[in-house]
């Protein structure tokens, strides 16, 4: 009996079916583990697919069409005012979500992964009790657990005024209506993406941000073109500003602002969208019955293989620490699955891309210029402005910038940043360069198609050596 136990397949429990959880579950199943996935939703997908990345990108696509149609006037093409069929738009967005999550459901089945829809709770380091959605309970014993419970929006207490006019990003994505006036609290990427959507749909959008800049973690020179463009899209952007009062009245919500340059400290809005950040979900499912420890910010303490302080439990995705990005979680989960299956894997990514799907997009990977300064690392930064790019001009979008952060002695590409339409797609080359430890001349000596925006990467690289074809002057 003992012998049988020793030789049987390792049982892996995956708690949470988001991009970290399902990627880990799929990979583990492919590696031959006996996998059980527990999630609240009928299909894998998590916040990303159901209430985050995917629905927001669907809506941002619609917003982009609206804006491009309007901007076409510059080129002598005039469309009439758009008619927005909100129900149809919502159905289309939900259809996208439905198609993707169903697809994941069949991928899950095809891999023979057992699925329990319900709410799990740890009894100890090797046992999870599941309250099934379809009545009944089930107890799952496992050898290893991949903890992928994700994150949720932070709603500070001051905003918790028991009003359905105060919403978070998940509610905003439901697209219940198009508010006339909406206040977005938080100038991070979620707030700006949602603000962009609602502005395109016709809302009057106000943005308040506590810090002195939008997207505080991005380099200033990447944020500037976005800020300028956003000012055309939204009614106001208040930096260094806080919401100090919030009160529901008959016509909406009365908001009181306090900040450096606030002309009208009082504002009445239909909706307040709170996007001040996300926090890991680590409570309410018996984690205290395991040996998993949390750090002071509430993330699971993990090593570079994503093993927690409980040797049977690995944590991946949002609960394993920043950046709280789907692709970081997926990669972590795949590495953890490999470790569990006995491979010497480790999470050692040098570049985790970050993409803000605003218009223009802001994207970076690897070391930012500010990050280098903060850590006192001498770097050389090369910048190629898009007004020297033929492709950007043909798109009627000259506001853009491609920059590369380079080690001055070894020429290693340490970071790449882009602002401009399509920056997220353009970033892939930069992320690859950072990940493989490419040298700046490797980028410069790769022939790029003309005319494309990707040429800006090559030309930025050429600037490192002082000579770029389409840009002349000081960097």
């Amino acid at each position, binding site marked *: 009996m003992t012998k049988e136990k020793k030789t049987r397949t390792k049982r892996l429990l995956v708690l949470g079916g988001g991009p970290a959880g399902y990627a880990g579950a799929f990979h583990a199943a492919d590696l031959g583990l006996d996998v059980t996935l527990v999630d609240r939703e009928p299909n894998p997908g998590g916040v990303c697919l159901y209430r985050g990345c995917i629905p927001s990108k669907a809506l941002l696509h619609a917003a982009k069409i609206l804006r491009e149609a309007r901007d076409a006037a510059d080129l002598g093409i005039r469309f009439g005012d758009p008619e927005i069929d909100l129900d149809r738009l919502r159905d289309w967005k939900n259809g996208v979500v439905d198609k993707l999550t169903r697809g994941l459901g069949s991928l899950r089945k095809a891999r023979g992964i057992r699925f329990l829809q319900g709410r799990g709770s740890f009894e100890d380091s090797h046992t999870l009790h599941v309250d099934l959605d379809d009545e009944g309970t089930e107890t799952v014993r496992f050898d290893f657990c991949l903890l992928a419970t994700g994150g949720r929006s932070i709603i500070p207490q001051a905003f918790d005024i028991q009003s359905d006019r105060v919403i978070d990003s998940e509610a905003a994505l439901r697209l219940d209506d198009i508010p006339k006036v909406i206040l977005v609290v938080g100038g991070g990427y979620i707030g700006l993406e949602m603000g962009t959507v609602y502005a395109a749909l016709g809302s009057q959008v106000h943005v308040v941000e506590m810090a002195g800049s939008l997207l505080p973690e991005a380099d200033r020179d990447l944020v500037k073109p976005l800020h300028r463009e956003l000012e055309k899209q939204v009614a106001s952007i208040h930096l260094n500003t806080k919401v100090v009062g919030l009160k529901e009245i008959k016509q909406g919500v009365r908001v009181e602002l306090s900040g450096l340059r606030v002309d009208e400290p009082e504002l009445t809005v239909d909706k307040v969208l709170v996007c001040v950040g996300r926090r890991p979900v680590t409570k309410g499912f018996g984690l205290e019955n395991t040996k998993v420890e949390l750090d002071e910010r509430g993330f699971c303490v993990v090593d570079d293989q994503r093993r927690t302080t409980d*040797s049977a439990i690995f944590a991946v995705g949002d609960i394993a620490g920043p950046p709280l990005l789907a692709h970081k979680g997926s990669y972590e989960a795949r590495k953890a699955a490999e470790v569990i299956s006995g491979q*010497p*894997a480790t999470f050692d990514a*040098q570049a985790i891309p970050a993409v803000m799907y605003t218009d223009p997009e802001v994207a970076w990977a690897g*070391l930012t210029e500010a990050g280098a300064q903060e850590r006192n690392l001498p770097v050389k930064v090369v910048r190629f402005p898009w007004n020297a790019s033929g492709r950007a001009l043909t798109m009627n979008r000259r506001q853009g910038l491609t920059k590369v952060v380079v080690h001055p002695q070894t020429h290693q590409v340490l970071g790449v940043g882009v602002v401009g339409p399509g920056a997220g797609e353009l970033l892939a080359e930069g992320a690859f360069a*950072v*990940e*493989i*430890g490419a040298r700046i001349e490797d980028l410069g000596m790769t022939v790029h198609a003309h005319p494309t925006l990707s040429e800006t990467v090559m030309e930025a690289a050429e600037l490192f050596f002082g000579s770029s074809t389409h840009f002349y002057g000081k960097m």
Partner: protein
Amino acid sequence: MSKSFKVPELGEGVESGDVIKVLVEVGDKITEGTGVIEIESQKASAEVPFDDKGTVRKVHVSEGDTVRPGDVILTYDSPEEAESEEKDKEKGEPQEPERSHPREGERAKEEAEVEEREAKKPSPEAQERALSERARTEEEERPEEEEPSLAEEEGGPPSAADLGFVMATPSVRRLAREIGVNVHGVEGSGPGGRVLEEDVKAAARRLVQSGGTQVRGPVSRIRGEAPDYDDFGPVRRDKMNAVRRTTALHMAGIWTAVPRVTNFGKADFTAIQDARARLADGGDKISLSAILVRLVAVVLHGHSRLNASVDMDREQVVLHDYVHVGVAVDTPRGLLVPVVRDADRKDVRTVHRELAALADKARASKLGAEAMRGATFTLSNLGGLGGGWFTPIVNAPEAAILGVGRARMEPVWIDGSFQPRPMCPLSLSYDHRLVDGADAARFLLGLVDAMENPLVAVLQGEPT
């Protein structure tokens, strides 16, 4: 001001040791030669003698700590300063003890600074953490003993490597992980210092040749870690001692890097037993191991490939003009291999005396690291315990190892009849990169011949 006394060099290539005993307390008056701590490092353990005179003010290490050369063991007041010291005390804590409390400060530092910290002899805890978090395998030149200044402690600007960047593709990084090399410590030969696949492989080879003692990280961790023994019954867990750890890492490294072949043979021990008995009659009790060491050393003279090492970096065969025979000794702490130097030039009495002294020291944990370095061939004699053939692992960078079992009476067909003869099983393992089967067979035959006809061996032996 009080002075500090630090961990001295522990021997060439020895990077750290475990404190197994603290021999002094605060307030003790100590003089030159007083043992202050007992350190167990790699395969040796030894007392660290004090080199000054004074009163212990504070002891900075405790039992179980891992220390490296340069770590402060204790601070003390030397007699001539003791008086003025009293006054300083009233004014407040002097800086020295404060700073030699490296743990908190070090711990707070970013993991990214690991490399830098190592160059500055970090605290044992930070070191342990660094080792467990990032496989660290590079042969690192340690700076000479010098007091790190405060400015140094703060550090200059970090390098890209400090921030975790390495100029190597993910596939090369994976290879490094798989073979237990820390890619952050590998010097790249590509443009701009790019770490190439060949660099990682070369680093692995160097590791094995240097004894492989630094193979750490995910590879060894995964192998060592199995799930839930508790499922099958109660278990107990002991921390590996330094000998066990070193043996584990060294053997795992050799196992993966050295293509080993083992040839088996048998020797008629009649002549050796006769010789031993005659020596004993004359008042010389000579151990079997001593006789074997002596015979092996003599026979090795005619088989230079078995007394050699591989240097793959330079693609060279290193032929040793000396014969130093390592002898495996079973001790309470584990396997130790002290070395009998120039065994080919010593008479058997001398070999016996030296070997006995080395074995005693090894069992009493008094063997220094130097006494275990430089062997060109190893002898592992399990005959005292019994047993037959086995397949010893070559103790790289040596080329071969001889395993000896217990001689048993067997019928041997001699001149038309079976005669009872004490036959001893011999197992010769060798590094096939260097030694071919025919080389090994010739050596083993030569050895058997020498054992069965010791006189011939002596007569044929090259003059030394």
